[in-house]
C-alpha cells in the first residue's frame, strides 16, 4: 500500500507541490491573529487557587501592578534640593502614565504634623525649589524614621529613592494596554535623564516584568532562531550531501513552522515565551522526518538505483515508522495539556501541530519536490556507515557486559533523582541580557523588591480595623515579619494610626503608639482620609466596610522554596497568636509562582503517565508484538530518568520548566526506539533473520539516521539553552541531555535486551 502511495505521489509531483503550498498558506494566514501576551497571569489557569485568591484580594482593595522608577543620584544623596526637585518633577509627570491610579514618592508622601491644635496634612517635599538646608534636614529626618517610606521609597542610607506608579489596566486587551504604559514610562525616563543628567534611572515593577515576556521572545527570535536555522542547514548539507535535499528540507521546516503558528493564530492562542519557543522546537522535530526519508533514498542511490525507484523504496519503508514517530511525538507534546500553566499547554499543542504538518510534508511535498530538483548522479558510500557496522559488531560481541554495565550505570544515576528539590526563582526566569532583570536585581539590592506577599487581615466585624485588640494583633504580625531575615519592608496600616495619634497629640513622640479606643482610632481615620489627595487614599489598604486591612510584605529576591517556608512560618505564627478571622494565607504573584512548580509537577505526572500508556499501546499495535512493545518501555523511560539523575547531581533544583520535560521528551525519545525496533522486526519477519542479524540489519539501515536526527535534536535544543528566558533554556538543556541518554540507550541497551529476551523463541508472526 505504501508503495502504491509513493508511486501516486511521484506521478503527481507538481500537483502535490502546489497542493502542499496551498494547504500551508491557508493555515499560515491565521498568523495575523497571533499576539504576544504580556501578562504574568497567563502562567496560571483560571481556576488556579492562588490566582483566584489574589484576584479576590485585588478586587477587595486595589490592583498591585506597578512601575517603579528607581532614582540613583550620582552623589548618592537623595535629600538634596536638586534630587527632590527631580523627584517632584517625576511625580507630577507620572500622573500622566496611562492607566495609572496612584503615584507615590518622597515628594508627595502625605506627612501629618501638629501646629497647635491644627493638624497639617501636606506633601513631604512641597515646592522643593524653595527648600533650605534646615527643611532638607527635617525632611530627611521624617522620611528616614517613617516605616511607610524606608526600604520602599527611600533606602535607609538615603542613596536611592523610588517613584512608584500603580497601574490598573482595564484588561480589555492587555497586549495593547501594557505597551502603552511601557512606551510612556520609557519616554518619561528618557526625558527625565535629559532634564536631570546627574540621576540614573532604573525601571522595575510588575508592569515592566509583563513586558519582559514578549521582549524575551523577540530576543530569542532575533538571535537564536537564525542561528538555529543556519546550524541545521550546515548539518543537513553535511549529512544529506546534496543541495536538493538540504533546500527541500529547509522548506519543510519553514512550512511546518508557518503551518503550526498559523493554526495557533486560528485557534486564538496568545504567545508567551514558552509557547513561542515552539518556533524553535518545531524545526528540530520537523527535520527528523525529512532526514529519515532522505537517508534511505540516498542509501538506495548509493546502491545504484534510479532516483524515482530510490524514493519510492524510501517512502515504502519509512511511511509507517515516520507516521508512528510523528504520532508518538505529538502525543508526548500533547501531554503538556495536563500542565497547570497554560503557556505549556499551548507549547505542547503548537509543537504537536507542527510535528503533524512536518509528517504530512515529508511524505508529500518532500519526495515530490526532490524529484523536481536536479539531483546528483551518484553518491559514494560514506565512512559513517562503516562506523555503524563496526558499532553493531561491538554491541553484538559485548552484549552481556553491556547489559550489566548499562543496567548498573542506570541504577546508579537514577538513585540521584531524589536529590532534586523543588525550587524556582521567577525574576531569574529572565536572563541578565534582558534589561528588566538587571534593573530588578539592582532595585532588590538597593531599594525594594518585586517579591511581595499580601495578607488580607480580617477583624470579622464592620469597622473592626479600628479595634485596639485587632490593631495590636496586626502590629504584632507585622513586627514578627520585620524580624525575619528575608524581609525588606512591611507596609501596614497600624503605622499610620500610630503617626496620627502622635500628630493629634502635638507631635509628642510619646504618643507614637496605637490609639487605645476604637472610636478614637475610627475618628482619626475619618479625619485623615478626609484630608488625603486624589490617588493617595487608603483604599489600597482598607476594604470598604473597614473590617479588614491589607498588609504587604516585601521580600528580597529569593527562591520559591524560601518563600513557601517563610509563609509556612507566618501561618504558624497566625495560628499561635491571632484570632481565627486573621488566619488567612498570603496571596500574591510571588505566592502564585512559588506554588506553580509543585502543582505543575503533580499534574504533569498524570499527563506523562497518560502519554506513556497511549504511546505504549500504539507501539504494541504498530509493532504487532506485546513483548516488544513492553520491552520498548525500558529505552523509552530510562533516558528521562537518567537525565533527572544527572540533574540531581549537577544542579538539584527543579522548577516549572523541568516539570514538563519528561512528557515532552517521551515523545521524542520514542522515535529512536520505534525506528530501531521497526527495522529490527522487519528483519526478523520479512527476512527471517535471527536476533543478532536483525540487530545488525537495524544498525545498518537506521543507525546513521538515528545518529543524525539525534545530533540535530541535540544541536537544536542546545541553541535553545541560550534563550533569554530561563524556563526555555532549562527545559532545552534537560531535553538535550535526555536525547543524549536516549541514543546511548537505543544503541547500547536496547540491542542487548533484544538479543537476551527475543533471541530464543520465535513468537513473531
Amino acid at each position, binding site marked *: 500500500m505504501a508503495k502504491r502511495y509513493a508511486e501516486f505521489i511521484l506521478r503527481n509531483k507538481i500537483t502535490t507541490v502546489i497542493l502542499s503550498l496551498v494547504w500551508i498558506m491557508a493555515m499560515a494566514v491565521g498568523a495575523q491573529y497571533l499576539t504576544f501576551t504580556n501578562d504574568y497571569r497567563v502562567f496560571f489557569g483560571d481556576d488556579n487557587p492562588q490566582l483566584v485568591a489574589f484576584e479576590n484580594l485585588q478586587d*477587595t482593595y486595589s490592583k498591585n501592578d506597578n512601575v517603579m522608577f528607581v532614582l540613583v543620584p550620582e552623589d548618592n544623596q537623595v535629600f538634596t534640593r536638586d534630587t527632590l526637585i527631580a523627584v517632584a518633577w517625576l511625580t507630577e509627570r507620572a*500622573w500622566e502614565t496611562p492607566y495609572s491610579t496612584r503615584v507615590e514618592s518622597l515628594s508627595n508622601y502625605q506627612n501629618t504634623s501638629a501646629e497647635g491644635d491644627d493638624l497639617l496634612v501636606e506633601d513631604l517635599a512641597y515646592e522643593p525649589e524653595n527648600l533650605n538646608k534646615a527643611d532638607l534636614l527635617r525632611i530627611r529626618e521624617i522620611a528616614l524614621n517613617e516605616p511607610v517610606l524606608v526600604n520602599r521609597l527611600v533606602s535607609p542610607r538615603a542613596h536611592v529613592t523610588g517613584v512608584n506608579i500603580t497601574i490598573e489596566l482595564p484588561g480589555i486587551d492587555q497586549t495593547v494596554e501594557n505597551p502603552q504604559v511601557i512606551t510612556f514610562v520609557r519616554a518619561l525616563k528618557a526625558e527625565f535623564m535629559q532634564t536631570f543628567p546627574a540621576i540614573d534611572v532604573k525601571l522595575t515593577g510588575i508592569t515592566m516584568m509583563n513586558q519582559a515576556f514578549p521582549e524575551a521572545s523577540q530576543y530569542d527570535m532575533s538571535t537564536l532562531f537564525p542561528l538555529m536555522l543556519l546550524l541545521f542547514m550546515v548539518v543537513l548539507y553535511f549529512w544529506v550531501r546534496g543541495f536538493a535535499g538540504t533546500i527541500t528540507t529547509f522548506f519543510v521546516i519553514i512550512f511546518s513552522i508557518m503551518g503550526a503558528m498559523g493554526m495557533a493564530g486560528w485557534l486564538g492562542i496568545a504567545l508567551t515565551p514558552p509557547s513561542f519557543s515552539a518556533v524553535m522546537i518545531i524545526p528540530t522535530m520537523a527535520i527528523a522526518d525529512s532526514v529519515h526519508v532522505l537517508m534511505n533514498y540516498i542509501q538506495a542511490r548509493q546502491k545504484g538505483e534510479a532516483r524515482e525507484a530510490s524514493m519510492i523504496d524510501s517512502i515504502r519503508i519509512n511511511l509507517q515508522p515516520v507516521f508512528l514517530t510523528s504520532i508518538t511525538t505529538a502525543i508526548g507534546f500533547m501531554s503538556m495539556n495536563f500542565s497547570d500553566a497554560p503557556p505549556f499547554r499551548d507549547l505542547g499543542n503548537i509543537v504537536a501541530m507542527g510535528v503533524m504538518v512536518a509528517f504530512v510534508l515529508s511524505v508529500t511535498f518532500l519526495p515530490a519536490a526532490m524529484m523536481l530538483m536536479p539531483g546528483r548522479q551518484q553518491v559514494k558510500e560514506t565512512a559513517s556507515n562503516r562506523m555503524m557496522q563496526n558499532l553493531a559488531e561491538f554491541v553484538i560481541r559485548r552484549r552481556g557486559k553491556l547489559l550489566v554495565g548499562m543496567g548498573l550505570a542506570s541504577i546508579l544515576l537514577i538513585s540521584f533523582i531524589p536529590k532534586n528539590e523543588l525550587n524556582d526563582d521567577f525574576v531569574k526566569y529572565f536572563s541578565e541580557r534582558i534589561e528588566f532583570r538587571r534593573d530588578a536585581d539592582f532595585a532588590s539590592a538597593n531599594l525594594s523588591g518585586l517579591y511581595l506577599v499580601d495578607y488580607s487581615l480580617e477583624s470579622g466585624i464592620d469597622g473592626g480595623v479600628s479595634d485596639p485588640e485587632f490593631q495590636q494583633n496586626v502590629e504584632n504580625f507585622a513586627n514578627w515579619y520585620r524580624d525575619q531575615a528575608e524581609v525588606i519592608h512591611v507596609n501596614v496600616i497600624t503605622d499610620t494610626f500610630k503617626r496620627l495619634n502622635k500628630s493629634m497629640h502635638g507631635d509628642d513622640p510619646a504618643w507614637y503608639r496605637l490609639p487605645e479606643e476604637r472610636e478614637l*482610632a475610627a475618628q482619626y481615620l*475619618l479625619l485623615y482620609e*478626609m484630608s*488625603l489627595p486624589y490617588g493617595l487614599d487608603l483604599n489600597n489598604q482598607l476594604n470598604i466596610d473597614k473590617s479588614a486591612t491589607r498588609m504587604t510584605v516585601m521580600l528580597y529576591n529569593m527562591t520559591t522554596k524560601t518563600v513557601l517556608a517563610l509563609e509556612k512560618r507566618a501561618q504558624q505564627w497566625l495560628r499561635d497568636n491571632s484570632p481565627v478571622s486573621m488566619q488567612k494565607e498570603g496571596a500574591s504573584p510571588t505566592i502564585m509562582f512559588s506554588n506553580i512548580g509543585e502543582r505543575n509537577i503533580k499534574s504533569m505526572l498524570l499527563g506523562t503517565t497518560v502519554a506513556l500508556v497511549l504511546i505504549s499501546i500504539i507501539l504494541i499495535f504498530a509493532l504487532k508484538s506485546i513483548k516488544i512493545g513492553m520491552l520498548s518501555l525500558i529505552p523509552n523511560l530510562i533516558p528521562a530518568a537518567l537525565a533527572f539523575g544527572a540533574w540531581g547531581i549537577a544542579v538539584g533544583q527543579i522548577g516549572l520548566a523541568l516539570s514538563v520535560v519528561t512528557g515532552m521528551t517521551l515523545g521524542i525519545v520514542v522515535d529512536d526506539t520505534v525506528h530501531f525496533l521497526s527495522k529490527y522486526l522487519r528483519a526478523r519477519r520479512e527476512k527471517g533473520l535471527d536476533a543478532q542479524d536483525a540487530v545488525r540489519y537495524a544498525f545498518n539501515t537506521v543507525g546513521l539516521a538515528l545518529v543524525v536526527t539525534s545530533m540535530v535534536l541535540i544541536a537544536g535544543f542546545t541553541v535553545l539553552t541560550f534563550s533569554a528566558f530561563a524556563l526555555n533554556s532549562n527545559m532545552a538543556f534537560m531535553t538535550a541531555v535526555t536525547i543524549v541518554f536516549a541514543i546511548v540507550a537505543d544503541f547500547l541497551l536496547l540491542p542487548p535486551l533484544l538479543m537476551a529476551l527475543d533471541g530464543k523463541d520465535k513468537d513473531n508472526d
Partner: protein
Amino acid sequence: MIKIVTFMVVMLTIPGLSQAQTAAEKGLEIAQAAKAYDKGFTDFTADMVMTLKNKSGDTSTRVIRMHTLEVENDGDKTLSVFDQPADVKGTKMLTYTHGLEPDDQWLYLPALKKVKRISSRNKSGPFMGSTFAFEDLGSQEVEKYTYLYLRDEACAEWTCFVVERYPAYKHSGYTRQVVWIDREGYRLVKSEFYDRKKSLLKTLVASDFQQFLGHYWRPGKMNMVNHQNGKSTLLEWKNYQFKTGLTERDFRSQSLKRIQ
C-alpha cells in the same frame, strides 16, 4: 497716528463682535445662570445615606446629616454630622468652602473631645472611602472653573447644555469635567470627571430630582461610578428642608462641640 491705533483697535474687536459669543463665553454664561438660579435658597438641611460598593460587590453604608448655609460672594458653609458607622457617630465636620483658596475645615472628634482644624490643600481624596471626592460635593462656585460650551443634547427627560469645565484650583484631582445641565431648572444631571492623565475617571448621574420652595431643584439620588477601579457609591438624599433658620452662629468652629 491716533487714527491708525483706533483703526487697529476696531479691526481687532470686530471679529469678536461679529461672532456674537464664543464657546467659552457661553459656557461661563451658563455657569453664572445656574449659580443665579440657585441663589437665595438661604440654607437647607438633608440626610444623606451613602452606599459604597467595590468590585467584588461588597457594600457598606454611611449616614450623614448635612447642613448648608448660603454665603454671598464666597463658597457655602457646610456642617456634616456623622451618624454611621457607629464608631464615628457624633463626629462633626465644618467646612467653609472657597473658590480658589484651600477650604477652611474643622473636625470635632467626640472620642478626643476636641475640635481640630485641618490644614490641607487637598479636597480631591475620597470622601469617607467613597468614590466621591470632597470637591465633588462642595458648592458650585463659578470661579472654580473655566468653561467651554459644547452643545445642546437630550438628557433624561430634558434638554441639556453640555459644558466642559477646567478646574482653576491647582490641587484639583481633575483636569477636565464634562457636565450636563438642563436648560430649564439648571439641574446637574450628569458629570464626567477626567483625571490627570486625561482619561475618564468617574461618571456621576443624578436622578429623582425634587423641587423645593417651588424653585430649587435637588437630586434624590446621585450615583458615582469609578471606571478605573470598578468601585461605585450611591448617595440617597432624604428629608430636604429649606430655610430652616440656620445662621452664621451655627457654623462656627467654637460652637462645633455642642451642635447636635
